[in-house]
C-alpha cells in the first residue's frame, strides 16, 4: 500500500474505528510502554484522520446493508467539535490510567471512547443506534471495574437505564424509518444555515421515542439519577471516562435532531437548578461532581432548546469545555480516591500540604466550571446566557440560569476544592498523585486556560463560525460583561465567607441523600406492597373458602365410600331390585331416544 493510498484511507475512515482497533489490542500489551503507545496512539491516529478528513458535510464512507445505505463517516462542523473533544479526552484518559494495569477496564474504556467518536461521525440513524448501544455496553465495565458487591449492583442499575435508552432509540428509529424511508439526517429536513441541525420534527413518527432515549442518556430530571448512582461506584479512572462521553453524546444527538425544540429550554433550565440543592448537602464529592454534570448539561440542553445560532454555538462550545474541566475535576477527585481511599468530605481536608499539584489542577478546574473570566467556562457558557438574555420571552429562564451559575460556584467552584484540600485538617498526609495522573490533569488544565485566554482557537471550529467570531469581537470581552461576571462571583464568594463565619453553612455530615432513585429502589416496591396487600387478603379469604370446600368434599367422600359409609350400608333386596330396574329402564330410554 502506497503512502498516498494509506493517507486516503485514513482521511476517509471514521476516526472512532482507529480508537476501537487500538482498544482491541490493549489486552495484549504486556508492558507500560506498549500500553501507553496503544492508549495514546489510538486517539492520536484518530486525530490525524480527523484533521485530514477530505471535506466537511459530505459522505466520505458508505456501505450498503440489507438494501439500506449506511453512512459510516460524514463529518460536519457540529460533529467535528464533539469528535475533537472526545478524541482529546480519550487521549487524556489513556495517560491518566497508565499507573495501573487492568486490561479489561483499559480496553472497554477505549471501546467506549471509540464508539462515542464513531457515533458523532456517522451520518444515519441506524449506524448511530449501533454506536449508541456500543457506548452503553462498553461503559458498564467502568462501573464494574472495582469488582465490589456495591459496584456490581450499581452497574446493573446503570445497565438498565442504558438499555432502556437504547430500546427507546431503536423504537424511534424503526418507526421513523418505516414511515419515511429516510435514515440519513442530512436528507431529513431543511437545515439551519446549511448545517443539518434540529432536523427532526417532534410530531414525526417515532420522534418522541428518540427524544426519550436521548433524554435518559442526557440525564433529564427524574431519570438523572443513574449518574449519581454509578459514577461514585466506578474506579478512579472509570469515573473520568464516564463523565466525558455519555451525556455529551446525548447533547450532540439532541442538537442534531431536536435543536430549537421549546420543551428543551425548560428541561435544561430545571436540570441546571435542581442539582444545586442536592449538591449543597451531599457528602461524597464524586456525587457532588455528578450533580455538577447535571447542572452543566442543563446549560447545554437549554442552549439546544433555544436553537439560535448563538445558542447552538454556546451549547457545543460548552460541551467541549465541560469535557475538559469536568474530566479535570473528576481526575483530581480520582487522585484523592487513589491516595486516601475516600472522597467523602467528612473524611477529607488539608490535603493541599502533600498534594499541591492535584490541588492546583483542581482549582483550575473549579475556576473553569465557575465561569471565572479567562477560564474556559466563561467563554463558552456566556454564549448560552447571552442567547437567553437576548429573547425577552426567556427572562425567567435567564434568571434561573443565573441562579444556577451562582449555585455551580457553590458546589463545584468552592465546595470541591475547599472540603477536599483545605477546610479542617483531616490529618491525612497522602503522597502526591502518580506522575501520569498529574500529566493528564496538567493537559486538561492547560486546555481550560488556553480556551479561556484565547477562545478564538475554539470558536473557529464552532458550527456557526461567523456568529461565533462576531460574538467574540463584539460582546465577550466588553467591560460590562466582565464586570458583571466578576460581580456575581465576588459577591457569591462573600456570601460563602459570611455563612461560614456565622456558621450558617450546613456542616458536612455522613449519610445518604435520597433522590429520584428512591422511587424505584424504595417507593416503587413499597407502593407495590401496598397495592398487593388487599389482593393478598382477598386471596387468603378465597383460599380459605377453597380449603373449606375441599375439606367438606373430602369428608363427604369418605363418608360415602368408607367401609361403613353410605354406599356400603345394607339395603333391603326389594330396594335393590327397584334401583336395578330403574337404572336398566334409564339405559333403555337413552339407547332408544338418545
Amino acid at each position, binding site marked *: 500500500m502506497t503512502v498516498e493510498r494509506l493517507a486516503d484511507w485514513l482521511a476517509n475512515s471514521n476516526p472512532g474505528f482507529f480508537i476501537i482497533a487500538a482498544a482491541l489490542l490493549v489486552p495484549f500489551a504486556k508492558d507500560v510502554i506498549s500500553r501507553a503507545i496503544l492508549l495514546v496512539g489510538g486517539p492520536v491516529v484518530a486525530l490525524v484522520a480527523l484533521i485530514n478528513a477530505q471535506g466537511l458535510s459530505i459522505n466520505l464512507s458508505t456501505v450498503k446493508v440489507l438494501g439500506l445505505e449506511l453512512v459510516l463517516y460524514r463529518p460536519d462542523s457540529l460533529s467535528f467539535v464533539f469528535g475533537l473533544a472526545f478524541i482529546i479526552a480519550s487521549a487524556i484518559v489513556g495517560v491518566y490510567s497508565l499507573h495501573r494495569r487492568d486490561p479489561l477496564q483499559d480496553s472497554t474504556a477505549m471501546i467506549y471512547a471509540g464508539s462515542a467518536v464513531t457515533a458523532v461521525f456517522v451520518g444515519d440513524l441506524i449506524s448511530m443506534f449501533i454506536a449508541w448501544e456500543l457506548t452503553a455496553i462498553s461503559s458498564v465495565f467502568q462501573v464494574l471495574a472495582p469488582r465490589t458487591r456495591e459496584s456490581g*449492583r450499581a452497574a446493573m442499575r446503570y445497565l438498565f437505564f442504558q438499555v432502556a435508552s437504547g430500546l427507546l432509540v431503536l423504537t424511534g428509529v424503526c418507526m421513523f424509518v418505516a414511515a419515511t424511508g429516510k435514515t440519513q439526517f442530512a436528507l431529513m429536513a431543511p437545515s439551519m444555515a446549511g448545517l443539518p441541525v434540529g432536523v427532526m420534527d417532534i410530531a414525526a413518527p417515532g420522534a418522541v421515542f428518540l427524544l426519550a432515549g436521548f433524554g435518559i442518556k442526557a440525564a433529564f430530571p427524574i431519570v438523572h439519577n443513574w449518574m449519581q448512582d454509578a459514577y461514585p461506584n466506578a474506579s478512579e479512572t472509570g469515573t473520568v471516562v464516564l463523565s466525558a462521553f455519555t451525556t455529551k453524546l446525548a447533547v450532540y444527538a439532541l442538537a442534531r435532531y431536536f435543536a430549537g425544540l421549546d420543551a428543551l429550554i425548560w428541561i435544561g433550565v430545571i436540570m441546571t437548578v435542581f442539582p*444545586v*440543592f*442536592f449538591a*449543597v*448537602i451531599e457528602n461524597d464529592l464524586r456525587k457532588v461532581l455528578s450533580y455538577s454534570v447535571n447542572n452543566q448539561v442543563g446549560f447545554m440542553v437549554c442552549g439546544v432548546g433555544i436553537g439560535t445560532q448563538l445558542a447552538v454555538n454556546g451549547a457545543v462550545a460548552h460541551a467541549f469545555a465541560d469535557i475538559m474541566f469536568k474530566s479535570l475535576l473528576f481526575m483530581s477527585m480520582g487522585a484523592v480516591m487513589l491516595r486516601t481511599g475516600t472522597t467523602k468530605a467528612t473524611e477529607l481536608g488539608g490535603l*493541599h*500540604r*502533600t*498534594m*499541591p*499539584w492535584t*490541588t*492546583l489542577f483542581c482549582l483550575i478546574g473549579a475556576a473553569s466550571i465557575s465561569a471565572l473570566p479567562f477560564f474556559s467556562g466563561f467563554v463558552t457558557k456566556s454564549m448560552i446566557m447571552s442567547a437567553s*438574555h437576548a429573547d425577552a420571552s426567556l427572562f425567567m429562564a435567564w434568571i434561573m440560569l*443565573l*441562579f444556577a*451559575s*451562582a*449555585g455551580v*460556584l*457553590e458546589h463545584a467552584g468552592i465546595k470541591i476544592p475547599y472540603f477536599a484540600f*483545605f477546610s479542617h485538617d483531616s490529618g491525612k*498526609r497522602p503522597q502526591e498523585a502518580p506522575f501520569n495522573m498529574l500529566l493528564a490533569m496538567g493537559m486538561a488544565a492547560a486546555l481550560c486556560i488556553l480556551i479561556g485566554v484565547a477562545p478564538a482557537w475554539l470558536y473557529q471550529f464552532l458550527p456557526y463560525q461567523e456568529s461565533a467570531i462576531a460574538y467574540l469581537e463584539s460582546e465577550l470581552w466588553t*467591560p*460590562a460583561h466582565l*464586570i*458583571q*461576571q*466578576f*460581580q*456575581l462571583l*465576588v*459577591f*457569591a*464568594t*462573600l*456570601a*460563602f*465567607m*459570611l*455563612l461560614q*463565619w456565622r456558621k*450558617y*453553612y*450546613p456542616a458536612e*455530615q*455522613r*449519610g*445518604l*441523600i*435520597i*433522590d429520584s432513585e428512591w422511587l424505584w*429502589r*424504595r417507593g416503587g*416496591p*413499597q407502593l*407495590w*406492597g401496598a397495592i*398487593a396487600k388487599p389482593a393478598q387478603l382477598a386471596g387468603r379469604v378465597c383460599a380459605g373458602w377453597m380449603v373449606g370446600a375441599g375439606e367438606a368434599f373430602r369428608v363427604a367422600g369418605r363418608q360415602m365410600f368408607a367401609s361403613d359409609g353410605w354406599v356400603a350400608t345394607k339395603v333391603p333386596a326389594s330396594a335393590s331390585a327397584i334401583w336395578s330396574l330403574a337404572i336398566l329402564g334409564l339405559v333403555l330410554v337413552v339407547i332408544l331416544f338418545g
Partner: protein
Amino acid sequence: MSAEPERPAEAPAGPGEPGEHPLSVLLFSWMRTPLFLRVFAIGLCIAGVGLILAEIFLSPYAIKDVTGVPGFQGVFGFVAFAFAVLCGWPLGKWLRRPEDYYDRRSGEAGRDR
C-alpha cells in the same frame, strides 16, 4: 576530658510543616496566616464595591429593566448563593438517611439491593 557531643542545631522553623511539599509551601502556606481570612474578606468587599462603581462608570448601556441596574448581578449572586446554601438545612433533614439505607431489609422494599 572529652568534650560533650555537639547537639545538632534545630532547623529554623519554615513557613510549612515538616514533610510538606515545597510547592504547597510556595503556593498555599500564606493562607494559614492568622489574618488571611480577614484580609481576604476585606479585599473581596473592596473588590465588590469597586466592581459596582466600575459598572456605573464603564457600562454604556441605558437601564431598561432591573437587570440593568448597576450591582444587580452582585446582589443576585449573593442572594442566590445564600438561598441555595440555607435551603441545605431543611433539605438535609428531609433527605438524609443512614449510609446503608438501601441495604436494610424492610418488608417488600428490603428486597432491593
